[in-house]
């Protein structure tokens, strides 16, 4: 483009960085950059009017402490060298190319908004949902508002045995009184109040020693009031012998799982289980091959599971088909086998096989001035602290490039000045951080009225209306 950057603007030659996505990856990258150099200015763009990504839309409502990171993100957003622009869809309202021309560097941190498909017949029947959508629904993600999951069945099957699978199981079976005090959405609360789900199976391809969930979440299921565990003792053959060689974290997790599944409980626990009205359990060595419809073909009525055996052991153990199958009646199937990143701009390199932006320590391949952090960089696994480290690494790469001259900051860049003009011309109204704070206050006030930390606004229209945009 033939404009002379020096002819106007340069308010300074301070490095201007644009970050796409305002979840943990975006905010931790921003935090690290702002702290490292006194002259860096960071603008964070977010598609929704509200920030924080999966901290708002992914973390379970009954895990409010995990959301404490929002306090740190808020401090970053309110820093003089940081600006937040919500309601801006990068790829549609403004291209990555335009951002690259406006800023010295662009960091893509927009995470994983898609999900891995199971890839079996019947996956699109009513009653079958991805965990991403189900979690988005009970957490008030605007795009999941219309999900209206059908909870009028007795048995639910969850595919996948990670922490998201356990979150879903826990929300399906939690006593309503506990959920009422969380920031779960009102429509979800009402649907769960009517729910007839009494049994939840958490199905995995491999065995007890390969579960991807962690012990805190397992313990929450074990201690969930009103529920009792029901598992297959035979699934634990060979496990006691293997325990002694396991590293402590895996050992404690497996011990708890085995104890819950196999051990005869003491009197108090026996009594508690007798009074339980809801059942949950892991089912191992099972892979879905088909989801069946009911006679009227209007919804799911069951799932066929192929029986596996393991080859190898530990993390690397592989599930191998035995040829046997098992059919399970159920009216709800929730696939929790992984989120997936999507490409948002054709000019950005994208590895469709791994569903990430190809990079080395956050530097996007064959794209000078372009970086990535968070799940878009490494794939959709790990908790907030993992993403934090990942984001710090990307920030370090960017700073190294500034120091080495690889990233040229000698010419001033217009940054948000130009982007704001483009957006205005295109009829896009960005939401500022103080706008978000108005939404935040309103949500908390509404929540207070019904004993909840907040009552989330559920549509983008509502959010913009509050702000008169």
């Amino acid at each position: 483009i033939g404009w002379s950057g020096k002819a106007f603007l340069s308010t300074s030659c301070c490095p201007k960085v644009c970050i796409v996505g305002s979840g943990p990856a975006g905010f931790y990258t921003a935090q690290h950059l702002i702290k490292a150099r006194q002259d860096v200015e960071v603008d964070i763009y977010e598609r929704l009017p509200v920030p924080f990504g999966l901290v708002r839309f992914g973390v379970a409502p009954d895990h409010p402490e995990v959301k404490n990171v929002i306090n740190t993100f808020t401090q970053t957003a309110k820093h003089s060298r940081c600006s937040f622009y919500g309601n801006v869809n990068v790829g549609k309202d403004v291209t990555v190319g335009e951002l690259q021309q406006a800023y010295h560097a662009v960091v893509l941190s927009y995470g994983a908004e898609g999900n891995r498909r199971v890839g079996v017949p019947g996956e699109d029947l009513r009653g079958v949902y991805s965990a991403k959508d189900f979690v988005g629904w009970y957490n008030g993600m605007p795009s999941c508002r219309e999900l209206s999951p059908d909870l009028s069945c007795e048995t639910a099957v969850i595919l996948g045995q990670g922490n998201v699978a356990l979150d879903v199981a826990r929300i399906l079976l939690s006593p309503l009184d506990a959920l009422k005090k969380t920031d779960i959405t009102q429509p979800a609360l009402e649907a769960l109040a009517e729910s007839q789900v009494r049994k939840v199976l958490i199905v995995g391809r491999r065995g007890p020693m390969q579960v991807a969930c962690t012990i805190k979440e397992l313990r929450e299921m074990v201690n969930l009031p009103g529920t009792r565990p029901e598992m297959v003792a035979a699934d634990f053959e060979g496990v006691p012998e293997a325990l002694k060689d396991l590293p402590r974290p895996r050992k404690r997790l497996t011990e708890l799982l085995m104890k819950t599944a196999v051990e005869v409980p003491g009197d108090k626990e026996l009594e508690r289980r007798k009074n339980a009205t809801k059942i949950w359990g892991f089912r191992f060595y099972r892979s879905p091959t088909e989801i069946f419809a009911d006679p009227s073909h209007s919804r799911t009525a069951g799932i066929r599971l192929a029986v596996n055996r393991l080859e190898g052991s530990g993390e690397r153990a592989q599930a191998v088909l035995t040829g046997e199958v098992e059919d399970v009646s159920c009216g709800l199937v929730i696939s929790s086998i992984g989120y997936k990143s999507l490409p948002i701009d054709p000019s950005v390199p994208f590895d469709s096989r791994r569903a990430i932006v190809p990079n080395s320590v956050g530097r996007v391949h064959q794209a000078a001035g372009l970086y990535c952090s968070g799940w878009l960089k490494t794939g959709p696994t790990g908790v907030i602290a993992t993403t934090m480290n990942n984001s710090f690494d990307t920030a370090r790469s960017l700073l190294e490039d500034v120091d080495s001259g690889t990233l040229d900051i000698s010419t001033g860049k217009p940054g948000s000045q130009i982007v704001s003009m483009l957006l205005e011309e295109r009829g896009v109204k960005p939401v500022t951080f103080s706008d978000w704070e108005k939404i935040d206050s309103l949500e908390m006030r509404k929540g207070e009225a019904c004993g909840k930390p907040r009552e989330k606004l559920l549509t983008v229209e509502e959010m913009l209306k509050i702000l008169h945009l």
Partner: protein
Amino acid sequence: MALVTAMRRLAQVSLREFSRRSTAVSWGAFHTAERSFTTGAQPLRSDNKVTVHFINRDGEKITVKASPGDSLLDVVINEDLDFDGFGACEGTLACSTCHLVFNEEMYKKLGPVTDEEMDMLDLAYGLTETSRLGCQICLTKSLEGMVARVPESVADIRQTKDGSA
């Protein structure tokens, strides 16, 4: 609007119309603003203080004086010790980023670990036999002169190598 047109238009806009945020927030405020972790006011007499030595990730020793009753996370925050990413969940046992390593003798003095702490500690990067979470260790005079090492990284191990969720 094409980018070129926008650029030319912008050149005509007076810089005075370009608003800047006026709030300057010091970096210290990042950690200490709006948080009160310390349990009540302690008189600042030196005989009521506990000396704590931290070894940071660069191997440097940092010595501070803290009040009995403070947790080690409180100390890190109150003294503005700049350990990257330390204490992300603000002491609520929802992460493992306040992971600290002690020598055997000191570890034994710290007493038993609850299941709750152990569950989160199990996820800490670089876990050792003498690891603890700083937010769960409350200072007493008997811990005078303790040395706490901040281990290499704060990554939770809840990311699998094969990329599955």
